[in-house]
């Protein structure tokens, strides 16, 4: 039971990104972020405000993708924008590219005028990153995601925010980048991406190899903490009994997880 797989480490690391947020709206995009936020709400930060991803604030903390629950508020899209500007929000977005200065791209790959690959569009990334705390989740850390310069800046990193002036920088707060390999922030030398910890079983060399730019790395990089027994029980029995987390982070899998 104390065995765990990488998905659990990631969920706990994401939960840790939200543990000191206090009573704010936690907006996870994607499955692992949703799992991590709900894990935080059931353990380290019960004050977090969470939604169904549609238009309702949830009174309880239901399993992934469960619908029925007590409703404690109304959060249609227009009010999400209100909360973004109000600032009491922490969003964890995905990222098709992240660069050395913590800029993120979800718009398109290649030249904007005629991209090689059109993605979603900038969505709310420009507004999120200059208004409320923003983190990123990358399930497959590799050199295609972590690039020297993103093709299109959707989410704004601290250096660009500062260059744009106090209107952009005063609420710019890129908090954490959690990947399947480690945990990062953007507080490295010259506002660059810094390695905070490597997940159990991952080496610093592996992270460097999978990153397309020079990371800020201290001489002694700690290991990401292991999930607690309580967290493992909450994840397995309460939040994700179907094991959906393994679709996003399939490896490495321990024997006790394969049996599930």
């Amino acid at each position: 039971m104390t065995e765990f797989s990488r998905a659990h480490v990631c969920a706990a690391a994401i939960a840790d990104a939200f543990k000191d947020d206090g009573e704010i709206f936690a907006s996870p995009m994607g499955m692992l972020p949703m799992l991590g936020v709900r894990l935080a709400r059931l353990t380290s930060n019960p004050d977090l405000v969470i939604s169904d991803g549609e238009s309702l604030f949830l009174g309880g903390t239901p399993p992934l993708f469960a619908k029925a629950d007590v409703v404690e508020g109304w959060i249609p899209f227009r009010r999400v924008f209100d909360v973004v500007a109000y600032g009491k929000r922490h969003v964890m977005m995905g990222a098709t590219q992240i660069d050395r200065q913590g800029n993120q791209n979800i718009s398109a790959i290649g030249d904007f005028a005629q991209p090689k690959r059109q993605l979603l569009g900038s969505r709310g990334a420009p507004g999120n990153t200059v208004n409320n705390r923003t983190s990123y989740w990358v399930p497959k850390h590799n050199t295609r995601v972590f690039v020297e310069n993103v093709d299109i800046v959707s989410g704004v990193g601290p250096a660009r925010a500062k260059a744009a002036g106090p209107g952009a920088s005063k609420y710019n707060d890129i908090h954490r980048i959690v990947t399947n390999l480690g945990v990062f922030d953007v507080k490295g030398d010259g506002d660059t991406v810094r390695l905070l910890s490597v997940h159990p079983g991952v080496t610093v060399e592996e992270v460097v190899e999978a990153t397309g730019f020079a990371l800020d790395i201290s001489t002694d990089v700690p290991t990401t903490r292991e999930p607690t027994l309580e967290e493992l029980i909450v994840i397995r029995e309460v939040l994700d009994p179907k094991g959906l987390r393994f679709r996003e982070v399939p490896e490495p899998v321990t024997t006790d997880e394969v049996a599930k």
Partner: protein
Amino acid sequence: MTKPRDKQMTIDQVVAQLSDGMTIGIGGWGPRRKPMALVRAILRSDLKDLTIVSWGGADVGLLARAGKIRKLVYAFVSLDSIPLEPNFQRARQNGTIPEIVELDEGMFQTGLYAAAQRLPFLPMRAGLGSDVLVNNPWIKTVASPYADENGDFEELTAVPALKLDVALVHLNRADVHGNATYLGPDPYFDDLFVQAADKAFVSVEQIVDTAGLTVDTPVQRLLINRMMVDGVVETPNGAHFTVCTPDYERDEKFQKAYAAAAGGSDEDWAAFEQRFLSGDEEAYQAAVAEFRAEQEATK
């Protein structure tokens, strides 16, 4: 007793109000409560060179594939359960939409607010530092005339008004005068679209009498008032295949078929068009019913 005027129209009468080169705002959000019956009517028309303003879903994909769009203003285009809209991707990657304006999704709301309030712009932070301002150099910043707590005069994005010639929205119910109510969980931004436009047309699942609008739903759901509306059309299942809760959920099987055709070969798309988009709305709904029956039969 005298009553306000009756604004009921047919789908074709709405489309007859549109002309080449117009700026058309399409309500709803992504794959949710889109005025698809009106979009399909535009596909059938000769209209061209349109500027489309939309938090986009298949509305944008279909219009792009049909070559109707000269300029697209959007923050994202997505089918949600299928994140990337294949027809939109294709149009972007082939460069077939001449003019592209990609905004942050909150800027989009602010732009509609500005238009609805007849202001040239409204300030906000979104856009600052991002490539939204690089790729749209016509969007300017503006200095606050007031010093902040540090004595700085903050430079903010001056989000330009997204002024529309016409707004098309789809709600659950309306009366013949144009008072309209949504019954699902989210109003989206349909009230902003209609107020940002010179003319607004509302399609609904059902036209009821005015008293019926508040019989079984709170008055707060009356999102749109008749003074904002020029025409009302009853189009049952008119948001198909997008979601229109509580009347119906998104038709995921149909959406999957749409996306497969859109992302497939030219022949795949031609077959989809031939089957679903070659006739009028009645023919479309009949083809959808047949599709559904097939899906049921293969269960």
